[in-house]
């Protein structure tokens, strides 16, 4: 049981990293990864939403959607409803506790709602028929994997700022190239644990 959870966790963080292997959540990955501290805060906020929404969507799936067979048409609607409410709550929390962080995250905070990693996590959990504990660990793992990817990216981008980039590659070009190389490097983890 515990080994099971550990495998799911490592799988979500390294082997099947949500950003670098599953290519979910790329919008904030590219948008908020300019500075390490902002990236870290974004990662933590996303982890929080991921964990809570993993729990909430599992509850809805198990107690409301599956028993009454509503899954095939209400799944997306109810999942997005839950995710949007959670993001709204965390937005209010951040606005109150740290206005500076709120301003530096800017538009990307409400954009966590449309972050496909969150909906992707919920749907993947349903797909793999995880129980509650497994879903929550999956959520935490996905969040930490996302945070890991975005912080590494931020670190690299801070260094790139000082380098001499060819004119045609400045901005989006070099960022996407870096993301691609980072993604290839994470391929090295595949086969680490067989799921």
């Amino acid at each position: 049981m515990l080994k099971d959870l550990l495998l799911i966790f490592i799988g979500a963080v390294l082997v099947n990293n949500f950003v670098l292997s599953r290519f979910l959540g790329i919008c904030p990955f590219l948008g908020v990864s300019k500075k390490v501290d902002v990236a870290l805060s974004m990662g933590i906020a996303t982890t929080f939403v991921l964990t809570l929404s993993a729990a909430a969507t599992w509850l809805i799936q198990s107690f409301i959607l599956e028993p009454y067979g509503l899954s095939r048409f209400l799944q997306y609607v109810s999942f997005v409803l839950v995710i949007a409410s959670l993001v709204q709550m965390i937005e209010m929390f951040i606005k109150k506790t740290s206005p500076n962080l709120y301003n530096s995250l800017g538009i990307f905070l409400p954009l966590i709602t449309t972050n496909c990693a969150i909906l992707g996590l919920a749907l993947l959990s349903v797909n793999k028929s995880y129980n509650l504990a497994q879903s929550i660990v999956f959520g935490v793992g996905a969040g930490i994997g996302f945070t890991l990817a975005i912080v590494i990216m931020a670190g690299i981008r801070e260094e790139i700022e000082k380098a001499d980039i060819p004119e045609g590659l400045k901005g989006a070009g070099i960022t996407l190239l870096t993301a691609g190389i980072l993604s290839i490097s994470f391929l090295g983890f595949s086969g680490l644990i067989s799921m």
Partner: protein
Amino acid sequence: MSQVFIISVGAMGGIGILFGAFLAYSSKKFAIETDERIKEIEVVLPGANCGACGFPGCSAYAQAIIDDGVSIGLCSVGGQAVTEKIGKITGISSDSDMAAKVASVKCQGGTNCSNNFEYVGIRDCHAANLLHKGEKSCKYACLGLGSCINVCPFNAIRINNLGVAEIDLSRCTGCGICVKECPKAAIELVPAAAPVHVLCKNIEMGKIVKPKCSVGCIACKLCERVCESKAIKVEGNLASIDYTLCTGCMACVDKCPVKAIKGRASEVEEKQSCCV
């Protein structure tokens, strides 16, 4: 069948109400005090969110006025009227008298200007500019591919029948976004009341300009000699006008041998005649 319907509606409604109540409670618990004047200023601002004031949108500018005390005269779209209204709300008197500005594309090239090659690529001025600074033989020319049109929040730019960008003076608010966007720096902000414009930015010598473009400034200085107010001067092979001295007599417009100088009224006339 109807059982599924009832349960679906009940379930979704229930979840909605639950989260709604939760959010309502959170908003009370995490409420922060905001100054009412920010909302009032937002109502008064034009709401175009063009960014000309230097802030990302009208709400951000309203907040900056109250929180950071920035100047209330930064909205070039609203102009003097909006500045006065903000002054009434905040009790700050507007110190500067803002002269309205408009954009002007300083080029009449297009079909008048020869091409060095034929550009077959993305129809975007930035892309065309990457290739030897554009297809035109004049490297200061408007490329006419419309990057400025894409960014204008007021739809005030179009490509005229010469193939260069042209500003619709009835719609331009002087926000300056096109000025920043143009890769050739061919657009400038000029006073809205300016009666005359030099429509060229080429600083090469006249004998180089003449074979390239039939309406490019050749720095012959005839305009400088005929101007009675000494408002127009030729410096660095290009004529430029000092609008504090210009009286709008149009002597330079008549005298210019290549017709590089145009009056504002004639710009509007040409526009109206070709829009039939």
